[in-house]
């Protein structure tokens, strides 16, 4: 995919991104792509003013501004069945208030979209895509009678050392609090406490290293979003090849129709 196709008017073009078959664009040209994004002026900031960390912001905000679209024709919600891929594993995590919370408690009873992320992530094909997808999905779902009381969003940090509960609170507070669909930000007490969950969910994480073998601070991982039903079964796993709000919401509506009693707890708020 050309960088021109990827960047439609300075914003990520979801329709163009991942349009072609092999999941190769984001890896083949990942370095070049990232470089191009950093070098291209993004409407929100002037290029000269961009400190390194702002590149992530620019990319993220460009993502927020993009109107996502799915090129393919999706079947009507409820007209198909999502496979029961695997039982979602459990783990003890921490919420943004620092309170211990079983992951199963955060996912059971509702239709849950769960993504792993870390706040230092700057890969434009990584965490920012999940973030923007969740924002769009949350906005739409909060106005959808079928989903607003049944869908829940969960972000779990891959980086417990840096993504402490206060950092999670900052991120959580940056999102609108009046949306019907809750968005939980979770972390773990340590990397070792998180490791079994990552392994069970097939989310491989490795420290990125420079030419001298020193850690760069980045965590290499593949973007995945898990859709979990109210009984704890993983029913879809989205990769960058087909992660869009339309796709996610279509499947979430299918599960909401399958589980009409699903409850995200928003009715009591």
């Amino acid at each position, binding site marked *: 995919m050309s960088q021109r196709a990827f960047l439609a008017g300075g914003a990520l073009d979801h329709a163009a991104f*991942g*349009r*072609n*078959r*092999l*999941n*190769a664009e984001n*890896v*083949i040209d990942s370095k070049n792509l*990232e470089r191009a994004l950093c070098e291209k002026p993004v409407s929100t900031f002037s290029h000269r003013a961009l*400190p*390194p*960390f702002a*590149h*992530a*912001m620019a990319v*993220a*905000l460009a993502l927020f501004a993009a109107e996502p679209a*799915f*090129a*393919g*024709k999706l*079947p009507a919600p409820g007209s*198909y069945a999502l*496979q029961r891929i*695997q039982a979602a594993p459990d783990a003890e995590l921490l919420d943004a208030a620092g309170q211990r919370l079983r992951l199963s408690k955060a996912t059971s009873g509702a239709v849950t979209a769960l993504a792993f992320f870390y*706040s*230092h*992530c*700057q*890969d434009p*094909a*990584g965490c920012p895509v999940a973030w923007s997808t969740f924002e769009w999905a949350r906005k739409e779902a909060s106005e959808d009678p079928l989903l607003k009381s049944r869908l829940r969003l969960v972000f779990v940090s891959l980086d417990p050392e*840096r993504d402490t509960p206060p950092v999670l609170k*900052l991120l959580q*507070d*940056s999102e*609108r609090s009046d949306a019907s669909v809750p968005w939980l930000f979770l972390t773990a007490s340590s990397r070792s406490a998180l490791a079994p969950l*990552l392994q069970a969910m*097939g989310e*491989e*994480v*490795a*420290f*990125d*290293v420079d030419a001298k*073998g020193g*850690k*760069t*601070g*980045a*965590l*290499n*991982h*593949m973007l995945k979003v898990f859709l979990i039903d109210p009984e704890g079964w*993983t029913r879809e796993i*989205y*990769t960058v090849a*087909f992660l869009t709000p339309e796709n996610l919401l279509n*499947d979430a509506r299918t599960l909401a129709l399958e589980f009409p009693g699903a409850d995200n707890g928003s009715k009591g708020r």
Partner: protein
Amino acid sequence: MASNIKLGRKRAALAALLCASALGLSPAQADETCNSPFMSGLIKGQEQYLHVWTLGEKGVGDESDKLVTIDVIPGSKTYGKVIHALSVGGRGEAHHMGFTDDRKYLWAGRLDDNKIFIFDVGTDPSTPKLVKTIGDLTEKTGYVGPHTFYALPGRVLVQALSNKQDHGGRTGLITFNNAGESIATTPMPLENGGDGYGYDIAINPAENLMLTSSFTGWTNYMMDVGQLLQDSAAMKNFGATMVLWDLKAMKPEQVFSVPGAPLEIRWSLAPGANWAVTATALTSKLYLVKEDEQQQWRAKAVADIGDPAAIPLPVDISIAADGKSLWVNTFSDGATRLFDLSNPEAPKEIYAKKIGSQVNMVSQSWDGKRVYYTSSLLANWDKKGADNEQFLKAYAWDGKELKESFAIDFYKEGLGRAHHMKFTAAAPKAEAE
């Protein structure tokens, strides 16, 4: 004002983020052009190891089916040599392989005894390890002949070739999770022109589309090819369709008439392209699957492969990463042919070379500079006597000529019949969690 405040808060939150370079996990450093779009770690560059799923043969080595690993790192002391061979026991018509989405495991099937072997190639690709054998496919699903292994997120989609009732061509798809548990079966369609046959799988995730092709059942693929060609009734039992599926719903949307056993399917990988090609084994034609001007998907013959009257028997194909060319092997004359696909509506053969007395599979590197060939089609369809050459041959492609880099005689090495190939590379040196 409210939106400005909100944006300001968002910026403030995001400003807390530190700069880091996240490049996405890339466990492999090279790859082919025919893998699932859901696979991670596809990076152009130099592949390091080539794995060949090899049919054991009586009187050759330990006579067992085996996964053979060859060092293909230029400059390596063992470049072009077999560095590992893992026998799995018995002979069950070893055939095709496919990676899981995380690229850590390689699934390999046998068409006769229906076993599926799962190899760990992520820990150390130079020495694959057998970690699981699925031996109850037919008992659990009724399907026979696990052929194509195609990665879905967290799952492997397996296309079978046959069934246990009549060992004919009616068959289905089986979805496994990555742990090797069967979670769904989907019969190939018999309605709207469907013949129920299966062969290959190719997915276009952005369009929510899957294509399948059709070959033949156990009775035919296990029959001696000389006997088969004389059996007019058996020769009618070949697939003549391709199916376009709604991937999400796993429901057939359209059945195309594609006579003559359409085999491997390749979607174009070119940016903006939205078409796929296949080759028909018995009628020697390239077919294009594409939307027409009315947004109707069609399959149409767009080129002959060699002289169809001579039955060159097209087998494997390999599309270039830019979608502009296609290698097509023809088993009967042992040739590989390069087609110009710049206009997919009218492919043109622009180069041909005889690889051996017989040739079946072809795999090219992402940059197209290296092309690998193996010889075996099916144990009972391979040529006899001196023409039954069994090899892996590697070539360098400079855009004009294939030049041999190395060749391995699989009989002299005591290995067997060389069939499907897959590339791997060692993981980059990063401290794993």
